[in-house]
């Protein structure tokens, strides 16, 4: 079975629905038509550009180009992690912490999946490497941002409690233990929910896409399970590392709580 190729006319028809929605918003004075149209335009332009990039990348499947693309994705994800925190760390730490953690975790799990599990030739072939890394980064980004945001916010709000625990002679890792535990939990909730609801409440997007393009459902399901496990493991490792490093950074060598290191 071959996938049915969409023409640009098909897309225009779909775009017509958005225009109708915008017109309704104008008519009912809901004032979302501007945002709606801008977002629709952005999604069109951004995805077309990415399509062109991926097409070029597939045509020149060299390790250099794939690495470059991966690097750009990582740097953007690192910025997102910082931007989503209410009180990120000051200075280089604010950006470097999330980025480094995602680099270690997402790249390691993606490499593991490509080399050990999928094992195609060459292993960096962009058709597998880029979507896999994209899904890893996207989910890890959400998890790490949630966990770090929770950790730094918690430390900020619980300053008096943490300092009391320090004053009672607890080591920093004991004094911050409750916040680390809570942050890890908060960071992992989205992916745990996604695994629990997969197939029952929602059909995961990747699997749906594969089925739409003609892959037999059982093959699509196997890929989806693989991806889910990789994402969960990658997000979990990233969160553990991020909260450990973040927790350390909240204290100095004399185990003092240093909220002045947060913005």
């Amino acid at each position: 079975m071959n996938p049915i190729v969409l023409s640009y006319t098909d897309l225009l028809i779909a775009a017509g629905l958005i225009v109708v929605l915008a017109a309704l918003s104008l008519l009912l004075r809901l004032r979302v038509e501007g945002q709606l149209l801008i977002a629709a335009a952005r999604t069109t332009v951004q995805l077309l550009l990415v399509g062109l990039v991926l097409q070029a990348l597939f045509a020149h499947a060299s390790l250099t180009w794939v690495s470059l693309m991966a690097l750009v994705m990582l740097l953007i994800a690192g910025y997102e992690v910082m931007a989503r925190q209410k009180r990120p760390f000051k200075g280089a730490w604010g950006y470097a912490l999330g980025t480094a953690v995602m680099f270690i975790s997402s790249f390691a799990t993606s490499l593991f999946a490509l080399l050990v599990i999928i094992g195609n030739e060459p292993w960096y072939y962009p058709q597998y490497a880029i979507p896999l890394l994209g899904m890893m980064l996207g989910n890890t980004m959400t998890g790490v941002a949630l966990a770090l945001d929770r950790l730094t916010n918690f430390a900020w709000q619980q300053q008096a409690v943490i300092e009391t625990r320090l004053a009672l002679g607890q080591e920093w890792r004991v004094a911050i233990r409750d916040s680390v535990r809570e942050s890890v939990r908060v960071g992992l909730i989205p992916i745990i929910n996604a695994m629990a609801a997969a197939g029952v409440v929602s059909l995961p997007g990747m699997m749906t896409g594969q089925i739409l393009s003609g892959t037999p459902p059982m093959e699509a399901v196997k890929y989806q399970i693989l991806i889910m496990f990789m994402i969960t493991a990658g997000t979990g490792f990233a969160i553990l590392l991020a909260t450990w490093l973040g927790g350390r950074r909240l204290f100095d060598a004399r185990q003092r709580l240093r909220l002045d290191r947060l913005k």
Partner: protein
Amino acid sequence: MLIMEGLRVREVTLDLVIEKGEIVCLSGPSGSGKSLLLRAIADLIPHEGRVIFNGEECAGMPAHLWRRRVGLLPAESQWWADRVGEHFSQSMTAELAALGFGPEVLAWQIARCSTGERQRLAIVRLLAQAPAALLLDEPTASLDQAGIGRVEELIRRYSQRRQAPVLWVSHDSGQVARVADRHLRIAGAGVEVVSL
């Protein structure tokens, strides 16, 4: 013996030697830096100068071991678990009784304790760590007369028995007269001696 040498936080400098078993009261207008000085002695905030206890310098030992030895009682008591007993590492029946609590207090919920009860419990919690020196930041501010008397008695006995130097921040001149061996007051950038 607790020695502060050129201990400096913000603009206040403290040079002070507290002998074994001696209680030194510290007073001064609010915002003058009393709490900051106590927190600096406990090494909870960055500071200049040296603090030495029984020949060992603060900077020379792991911070958590220093804080177990030099116990700080913050002005407001803080709790992290649901029940009182979860905050205690050992049984403190005698000390709890001295502050008017029976052993059943360990099962109480923190959320249902009054401010004064929490404050008295925080004092017992600090003593449960067996600190060899005490830094007390207005320990009786939220207590009634009976409670104040019990706390003063408990601290004085602890200090005598353990030969623990005590630095006690207090606004209450009556309390200073009752417990202090010496009285200091923060004045500008330094500390002046007040005669008892």
